[in-house]
């Protein structure tokens, strides 16, 4: 059985009110309704009359929605600036991921050098550190775009964002995420090592471009399939 004021909550979410305000509003309304019900029953009304009077006193769904919608400050950032959240944020999130990764890796390498007293920036680090950094980079290059897509999908779904914006966010994440690279060139004893984060890099070549296009296509295929399955499941849920 749907909870009281659930339809009102759904309507507010679709109109762009921030989920935290919607959650609290419906919770407070339910609590207020229970208090009114108790008050009416204590005043001698029978259960049905008490429910009707409580509902009338608290206000119609129409009125309750109108007062909330009249306050633009209660709308979510995603509904006020969807182009920023679903258009620019994926790119910023990918950049932040790369910058964060480089900072962590550089910190780890410096720490290793400081703790072991060597081998220095020109000498190859131990195998375990190489493996760790390579695994970390692989995770960033292949999994981070998918995770960012999943986060944006969840945010969009939670805020009942129009499907068009969600598709934009997923598309931007998959395509830009296909072209971002985080890599490391280990020191060989003569030259110092180098950490790099780039789009379409670090060394531009035809093979690299093709690799990036294939990665973007794989991202699109994976995310697109997941989104398609979710749409099918969602439409069959509403059809029931």
């Amino acid at each position, binding site marked *: 059985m749907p909870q009281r004021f659930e339809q009102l909550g759904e309507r507010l979410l679709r109109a762009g009110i921030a989920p935290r*305000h919607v959650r*609290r*509003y419906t*919770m*407070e*309304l339910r*609590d*207020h309704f*229970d*208090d*009114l019900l108790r008050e009416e029953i204590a005043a001698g009304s029978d259960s049905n009359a008490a429910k009707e009077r409580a509902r009338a*006193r*608290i*206000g*119609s769904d129409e*009125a*309750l929605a109108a*007062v*909330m919608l*009249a*306050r633009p*400050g*209660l709308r979510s950032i995603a509904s006020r600036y969807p182009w920023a959240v679903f258009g620019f944020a994926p790119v910023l999130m990918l950049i932040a991921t790369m910058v964060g990764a480089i900072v962590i890796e550089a910190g780890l390498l410096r720490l290793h050098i400081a703790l072991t007293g060597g081998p220095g920036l020109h000498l190859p680090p131990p195998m375990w550190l190489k493996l760790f950094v390579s695994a970390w980079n692989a995770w960033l290059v292949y999994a981070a775009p998918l995770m960012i897509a999943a986060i944006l999908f969840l945010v969009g779904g939670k805020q009942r964002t129009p499907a068009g914006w969600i598709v934009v966010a997923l598309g931007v994440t998959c395509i830009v995420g296909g072209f971002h690279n985080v890599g490391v060139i280990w020191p060989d004893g003569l030259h110092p090592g180098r950490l790099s984060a780039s789009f379409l890099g670090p060394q531009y070549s035809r093979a690299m471009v093709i690799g990036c296009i294939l990665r973007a296509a794989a991202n699109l295929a994976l995310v697109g399939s997941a989104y398609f399955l979710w749409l099918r499941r969602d439409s069959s849920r509403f059809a029931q």
Partner: protein
Amino acid sequence: MTNPSFMNGVPELLILRLLESREMYGYELVQAIRAATDDAISLGEGVVYPVLHALERQGALKSRRKPVNGRTRVYYTVTRGGTKHLAGLVEQWNRIAGAVGQVVKETTHAAAV
């Protein structure tokens, strides 16, 4: 006066004034408004919550959740910023009430003459 509606700011004023004395949750606050205004101001009771949320967002109120009899109630109190905001609203209200009172007095006087 630039404000297009005489009721604009009134719920905020009443809420801040009543919460200034003690913390309350929504139902309690609505009862306090009814008692304080002798039922002269009657709103749909649920209408108070968006005002509370907006005031909290502006920093005029702060809220805390308190479990009571297995339920969670949200209690609101006025912040220092809220007290300043209230002073501004009271001043604005006094100006409006004074101006309206002046017009009513002059109209009544003219009708009597």
